[in-house]
Every structure is written in C-alpha cells, then in structure tokens.
C-alpha cells in the first residue's frame, strides 16, 4: 500500500481516493485516481459499495413479487425498471396488456424521464459549481413527485407498473393536472436554458471534454443519452418500439457538437435537456388519447410462465435497461439478469480519464448521469 507511482518521465504520481464519500461521485462509487497533481493518468472505478444482490433475490420470490425490488435498481427512474420487468414477464408468459394500461405506463415513464433528466442536468451543473440550476431542477421534480404520489402513492419507488398492467387507474382529474404541469414546463426549461445551458463557463468546462466518438461509444456499450450524444441515432422507443410508443410522434435527439466536437460532455448535457422537450411532446399526445378500459389484465395469482428465456429492454432515462429472464416453468424466475446503462458508462471512464484533469473527471461522471445503485444492483 505504500509504493510511490512514478510515470515514464520520473514524475511522482499521486494516488488519490475519490469516493466513496465524495460530493460528486453521485452515490457511493470509488475512483482510484492516479494523477500528477491536476492531470490524471487514469481513474479506476471501484464498484460494489451498493451491491444488494437484487438479481439473486429474483430467484427466490414469485414473479410478481419482484416488482418492488426493481424500484431499487434505479431510484431516480424506478418506473422504467418496473416497466422492463413487467415487459419481460409479460413476454415470457404471453400476457396481453390492456391498451389503457399501456398509455398510463408511457405517461408515467415519460414523466419519470423528465424528473430523472432534471436531476441529471442539475447535478451536472452543481458539480461544475452552479448550485442554483440544481435546485430549480429539483423544484420541478418536486411537482412530478407530487403527480406520481397521487398516481401510485409513492414519490420515488413507485412499484406502479405491474406484470399485466399498472397497479391503479388514474385518479379523477389527474390527467388535467399532468397536462397543466407539462404546459408550464416549456417556459421553465427556457428559463433553465437561459440560466445555465448557454452559460459560457459551463460551455467552456464541458465542450471538448471527454469526447467519445460513435465507434468508441458502441464498443463500450454505452446506451441512451450517452450513446445519442455521440451522434448514434438509436432509441429503443423508436427502433424497437415497445408498449405504445409507435403511436407517438417524437424526435430522437442526438449530439450535434453544439459547442465542440460531437460526443463531448456538453453534448451529453444538451441531449438530456432536448429529451425533456421531446418527452413533453410525447406526454401531450399520450394524455390526449388515453383509451377507456381496464388497467390490469386478468392473471392467476400464481403466475407460472412456460419454460423459456426472454430479453426485454426499455429506453430508460439512462438508456437501455434490459432484463434477461430465464424461466424453468416454476413459480419463481430461474435467473434474472439486469443490464443497466450506468454500468456500461462506468466501464468507459477508465479509458476516457487518461489526460483529463480532476475537475474534468467530475464533469465526465456527471455527464454520464451515473446512478450508483444501477451500477451495483
């Protein structure tokens, strides 16, 4: 533990623990940083501080009972984790979901995406030193939390999308409240952009920092906004339509290299802001066309999907959130594997960190929107 690292030129290197207790690692992640003071040679992520064995838990409990555990996969966007699991089991068991339930799922998911992105961009601004945009984001997220609370009784861990539908119907007047919220969100995002997105210091801090070209992005398995920021036009909602996403018009936002090269940290920031605007569009369409009907398919209490395996993925706020589930025909899953965006993003950090400054590492982590429980599960 006491060796002194020396680089090729004989400069002494400093080995530094960044995390697990660090303000900007977004949860308990540890990076072992080797640097010569400011410029890093590498930053090696050490994961596992939040490992709870969620995949193993799945093997011991009935199919439907696993839904609350999926909430804990990603606490900022629990709806997607619910949704992915429900989709996997539905495909495995061949369950037909009522259309009203699908609409409600989409609405809840998109609201959750906005909430998650607000935290992501806000936290990134905060890591760069601007505290106010973060709290403006949190203020809006609070309203989404209120909506969610009315919808499913929970503000963070929703347990809302169940196998076969959703846990409860919309409360009377909920859709009007949601509509009013998203109508007001547009000007709020404008204000947010005026406050921080166009800020020259933020641009200087993020543009051309940790550029990921499309090839590298694909080879690291980046997904979601991180992949799209690199200019790869890939969105599960459009390219592998699930639920009722094929009924809605929306644009897939990709990185354009707004203020630097394509795939830099600033693109990752702007793509998230852009996606919120697209989510608003989807929400408007979805809220306008909710069909009548039941919200839950008729299921037996003891679900026994036939023997087989399935991979179901949703486009979460952090990209493709996939469940690979194997059934042996029993009352419990034989194996469930969760594929998350944050884990892939974290794996890219070591390769990208060479030559960055410590301050850039903070930007890089924040721009990937890494959420610790999603990494460790």
């Amino acid at each position: 533990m006491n060796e002194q690292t020396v680089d090729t030129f004989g400069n002494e290197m400093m080995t530094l623990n960044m995390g697990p207790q660090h303000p900007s690692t977004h949860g308990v992640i540890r990076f072992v940083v080797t640097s010569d003071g400011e410029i890093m040679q590498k930053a090696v992520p050490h994961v596992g501080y939040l490992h709870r064995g969620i995949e193993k838990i799945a093997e011991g409990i009935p199919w439907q009972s696993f839904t609350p555990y999926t909430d804990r996969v990603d606490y900022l966007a629990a709806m997607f984790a619910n949704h992915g699991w429900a989709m996997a089991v539905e495909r495995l068991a061949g369950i037909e979901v009522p259309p009203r339930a699908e609409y409600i799922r989409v609405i809840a998911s998109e609201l959750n995406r906005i909430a998650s992105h607000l935290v992501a961009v806000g936290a990134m601004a905060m890591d760069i030193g601007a505290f106010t945009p973060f709290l403006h984001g949190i203020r809006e997220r609070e309203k989404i939390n209120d909506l969610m609370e009315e919808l499913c009784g929970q503000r963070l861990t929703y347990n809302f999308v169940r196998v076969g539908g959703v846990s409860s119907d919309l409360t009377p007047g909920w859709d009007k409240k949601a509509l009013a919220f998203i109508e007001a969100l547009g000007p709020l995002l404008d204000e947010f952009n005026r406050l921080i997105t166009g800020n020259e210091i933020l641009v200087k801090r993020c543009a051309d920092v940790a550029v990921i070209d499309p090839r590298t992005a694909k080879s690291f398995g980046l997904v979601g906004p991180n992949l799209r920021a690199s200019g790869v036009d890939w969105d599960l909602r459009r390219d592998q339509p699930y639920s009722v996403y094929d009924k809605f018009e929306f644009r897939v936002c990709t990185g354009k290299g707004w203020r630097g090269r394509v795939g830099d940290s600033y693109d990752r920031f702007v793509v998230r802001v852009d996606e919120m605007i697209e989510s608003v569009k989807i929400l408007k369409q979805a809220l306008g066309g909710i069909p009548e009907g039941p919200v839950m398919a008729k299921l037996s209490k003891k679900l026994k999907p036939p023997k087989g395996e399935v991979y179901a993925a949703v486009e979460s706020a952090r990209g493709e959130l996939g469940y690979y589930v194997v059934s042996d025909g029993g009352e419990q899953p034989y194996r469930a594997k969760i594929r998350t965006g944050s884990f892939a993003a974290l794996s890219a950090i070591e390769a990208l960190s060479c030559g960055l400054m410590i301050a850039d590492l903070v930007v890089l982590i924040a721009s990937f929107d890494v959420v610790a429980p999603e990494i460790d599960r």
Partner: protein
Amino acid sequence: MSELFTFIQGRWDPAVTYPQIVWPALVVAYGVFAVTFASLFAGITSWYERRVAGRMQCRIGPNRVGPQGVLQWLADGFKAFLKEDLVPKEADGILYRIAPYPVFVGVFCTWVILPYAPAVVGADLNVGVVFLMAITALVVAGIIMGGWASNSKWALLGGVRSAAQMVSYEIPVGFALLTAVIPAGTLSLQGIIAAQGGAPWNWMVFHSPATFIAFFVYFTAALAEGNRTPFDLPEAESELVAGYNTEYSGMRFIWFFFAEWANLYVIGAVVAAVFLGGWRLPGVGIEQQAASLWLQFAGACLFVLKALVLVNVIIWLRWTLPRLRVDQLMIMCWKYLVPAGMVLVVVAVFWVFVERGMPGFARWVAFLLCATGFFLVGLMFWRAWYNIKYGGDRLYLKFMV
C-alpha cells in the same frame, strides 16, 4: 486616525488638553470598532448570503434563529464553539494550528485603510494601495500553510491550487489599481477618493476608457483573489471535497470562512473607494464635507451603501455562475487579464495627456462612459425583469418568508 483626532480637537476641549490620553483611547476605540464591524459584517453576511441563495433557489434559507433568522450566524458560531478541535495525526501540528491566523489577520488588517469619511479612516497611509496588496498576501500564506500542514491530499491540492491562483491574480489586481492611481497621482485611498467627485461622471470608473475596463479587471481579479465563485477552486466542493480546509474543524474552520466573508466587504469597499467615488457626496466639496459632522456621516453611509451593493453583486454571481477549471483560470489571468492590465496602464498614462490637451473631449468621454455604465446596469435589470416575467415559475417578490 490623525485626521479624526484633529477633527475632534476642533470640537472637544479635553482633546486639546489631554491629547496623550484621548489619542491612544481613540486608536483603541477605532480598533475595537473595526474588529466589531468586521466580525458583525462577516457573521451577518454569512446569514444574508444564505438567505439570498435561498431566494434565488426557490427555497427559504435560515429563518429560525431570531427574527428572519438573523441570529443564525451566532448559532453556527456557538455550534463550532462546542466542536472538537481536531489535529490530524502526522499533520504538521504547529503550522496546522497557526494557519487560520494569517488568513484572519490578513483580511482584518485591510479594514484599517478603508476610508469612511474625510476624517474617519484607520490609517490614511500614503502607500495605501500597496499596503492593501501586501497585507492580503498574508491570506495566501495562511491557505498554503493550512493546505500543506493538513497532511491530506485533498487539502494539499486545494492549497497548491490557491497558491497558483491567488498569487497569479495579484498581478492584474496591481495593474488595475495602478490604472486608477495614475490619474489620481497618489497611493493613499483618501487621496484617490479626493481626486474623484460625488457625481457619477466624476467617478474614477468613468474617468477614462482605461479605468472603465480596469474596474472590471479589478473586480474579476479581486474575486479570484478572494476565492469567490466563479473562481473558488481552492475550496471547490464538488472536486476537492472542501479544499484546503478539509481537515479543519471547530473554531479554526470557522475562521477561514469568517475571513472569506469579511473579505467580501473589503472587495466591495476597495472598489467603492477606488472606482466609485468612495464617500464623496454629489455637489459637496471636500472641505465642506470635512467640516460638517453630518456630511461626514452621510458620506460614510453612502460609502457603506456602495460597498454593500457590490457585496450583493458578488453574492449574486456566486449563486449564478459555475466554476472555471484550474487551467482556464490561469489562462484567463495570464493571457487576458495580465496583457489587458499592461495595455490599461499605457492607455491611462496616455489619457493624462489627452486630458491636458483636450479637457473638453475627456469630459465628453466621461459622460459617455457614465451613460454606458448606467446602460449596462439598466440592461441587467431589464434582463432580470425579463426573466421574472417570462420565467416559468412565478416568483414571489415578497422579500421575506
């Protein structure tokens, strides 16, 4: 101090009869006044800044201790008072323990030269500006000491960052002040104020294009020297945990921040004195103001007001702007502010000849610059109004909650 003494002698017979008692008493009284003012200012600003931040961030901020939470700083101080004063193992005990003192003393001593009125100034040094730069250099020493002695890598990083930053930014500070010194022809802050006038177009900032830009150069560089956002890298929370004061606890920790908040006033007051006319009242001559107690008092109020407005601006900046990266910070200093400072000095010198040759032209330029300055301020308020009107959430413009 001697001006005040002379002023009192003119009005109060015992001061003439027993100068050997009244003079030291006056000095001690002024010292007590300055320390109290500085402490009160630092404490109340720590509360005020959090309240402003709360308003800007759609939350309330501390409002529990005392009316509107104004005694929050006492509660915080009391809490720190009861904390364990930790010294990390393997830390350099002596350096670690004395590090807060240079920071504290360095900031507090600048209060001596801040002029409030023609007669009210701690020490009207004929090298005032140089003294200001010299004594604030103590702060750097304290911060490096604290960062190095802590024996913690984060603190070390913060300490070394601050060494590079604060020391580099002394150069633009020097050049910007020099630009103001050239037309005034004196280094004494009182003298610089006397060279200005009460009306805005007679202020140093609008004196010439050079001083106009020097105002911004000084303000920026002073923020960097005072470790304020967007230049708060030595204590960058999200990068360095807490920077140079990571290991400090209890009162020692408080002193670092106390000095930082006191320094806010120093920045505001120096800018107000050097660039914004100090205690000069519009339409009142210096002799007239020096002779009247009430005019002196009014001047002091105006000076404090100007300083507080600038403190407010600094607080707004802190809660609006992100933070620069360390290399960008150094680039800004060495590739922009330092060359700008050199050019400014030459232009300021050149302007002295312009003033001599074409006084009318110089006068018109001053009016024009004054109009530009007020236009910029108006623009800022227009932007604020626009953001309030078209911003998403309706702001509740009731000041206190």
